[in-house]
């Protein structure tokens, strides 16, 4: 094998005066930023959608179902390209031009990833709520709570605990999926990975390092979620998957 190992190239100076390891760190920073903001959007919107899909109002259920089907059945990269290349054309000219020229790429990228993930979280929130005994809603209503209060104090606190394991894997997914935003110009970790390969050709070293970083990221998310899981556990209640 005529591959030349060179583990010290990470400290070499790049074209723009920084060092390669600094490129990796800045990529990691953007990966975490994109993932966390998208996750926040996905949790808020996903929860709202999940809730309305379990209400008695038919048209609310329809909105929620349609959203989920739409965003689940189109690949993420296609969705991002729609937001970047198609959506601005449908807007009034001034708004479209602003989006194409002045808006930093990372903002629509975060929105795109958040909206995509919201569909998956909506599905989980819905199944969490539906897994609770029907009697809980009725008991809440019989006690004089309004339907929003039943959701706030009775259903959602338990539903979230039940779906924490699946939320864990979705949070890990969003870190992985944030890599797709490189295609629309976000300078996150995968973008830097690709760029460093193009500049240095040290494929194996950089692959090992970036793989390790993604692995540690996924593992950290997993541990943080496990911590939340054990902190929020209701004594005497088995909420599956807890370790």
């Amino acid at each position, binding site marked *: 094998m005529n*591959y030349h190992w060179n583990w010290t190239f990470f400290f070499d100076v790049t074209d723009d005066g920084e060092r390669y390891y600094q490129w990796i760190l800045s990529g990691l920073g953007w990966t975490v930023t994109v993932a966390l903001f998208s996750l926040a959007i996905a949790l808020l919107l996903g929860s709202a959608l999940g809730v309305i899909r379990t209400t008695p109002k038919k048209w609310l259920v329809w909105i929620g179902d349609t959203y989920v089907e*739409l965003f689940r*059945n189109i690949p993420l990269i*296609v969705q991002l390209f729609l937001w970047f290349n198609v959506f601005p054309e449908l807007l009034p000219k001034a708004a479209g031009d602003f989006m194409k020229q002045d808006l930093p790429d990372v903002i629509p990228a975060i929105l795109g990833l958040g909206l995509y993930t919201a569909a998956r979280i909506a599905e989980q929130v819905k199944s969490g709520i539906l897994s609770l005994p029907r009697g809980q809603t009725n008991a809440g209503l019989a006690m004089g709570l309004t339907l929003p209060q039943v959701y706030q104090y009775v259903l959602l606190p338990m539903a979230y605990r039940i779906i924490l394991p699946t939320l864990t894997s979705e949070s890990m997914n969003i870190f992985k999926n944030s*890599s797709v935003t490189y295609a629309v110009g976000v300078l996150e970790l995968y973008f830097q990975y690709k760029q460093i390969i193009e500049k240095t050709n040290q*494929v*194996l070293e950089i*692959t090992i390092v970036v793989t390790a970083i993604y692995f540690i990221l996924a593992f950290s998310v997993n541990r943080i979620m496990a911590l939340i899981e054990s902190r929020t556990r209701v004594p005497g209640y088995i909420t599956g998957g807890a370790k």
Partner: protein
Amino acid sequence: MGGFDFTVITANWEFLAKGLRYTVQVTLFAMVGGIFLGTLIAMMRLSSFKALSLFAAGYVNLFRSIPLVQVILAFYLIIPIALSIFTGQMKPIGADNSAYFTFTIFEAAYYGEIMRAGIQSIPKGQVGAGYALGLNYGQVMRYVVLPQAFRNMLPILLTQTIILFQDISLVYAIGATDFFGAADKINQRDLRPVEMYTTVAVVYFVICFSLSRVVKQLQKKIAIIR
């Protein structure tokens, strides 16, 4: 920009169809290969040999924690290096070919976890009964456990295949011409983003939505049998 220009699509439908065919081919290849490999990995993971189960757990955890785009690019670049150990010379294998290999290896980790759940859903007593009848491990797996595990997990395996079908679009990372790649290349030449990307989105939606309906029906059918 003007209105929605259908002629861009009709003029290029052959190129788009070729891309879609490639997407379907990689999906089917990786599904068959991935389920086969995934079943082996699931059996290894559940085996009592520590080395085998550790290897399988490592395989699954590794591929499930790194982004697919990275795997696609890394394999595309590393396979020629690895092959050069045997052939002595570096020869690129082509983006289109490397995707078949990458997706099979990558999806095996996901299919493997599904098959593991399927195997574990079979009551232990059935394995014991099989041994009591004089079957060996291979026979118990082949005639007793796997057929049932496979049937129980069929809806989930198919759901994973729908995800795989969508994930093929990430070969964009290495410039292979799948369905999305074809549309993207046409757009680079003709500059019709609205028509091209909307078409891709609509076609993907129709295919994936219909398939997920089929899976739902199947789920109901299987639920009755059990």
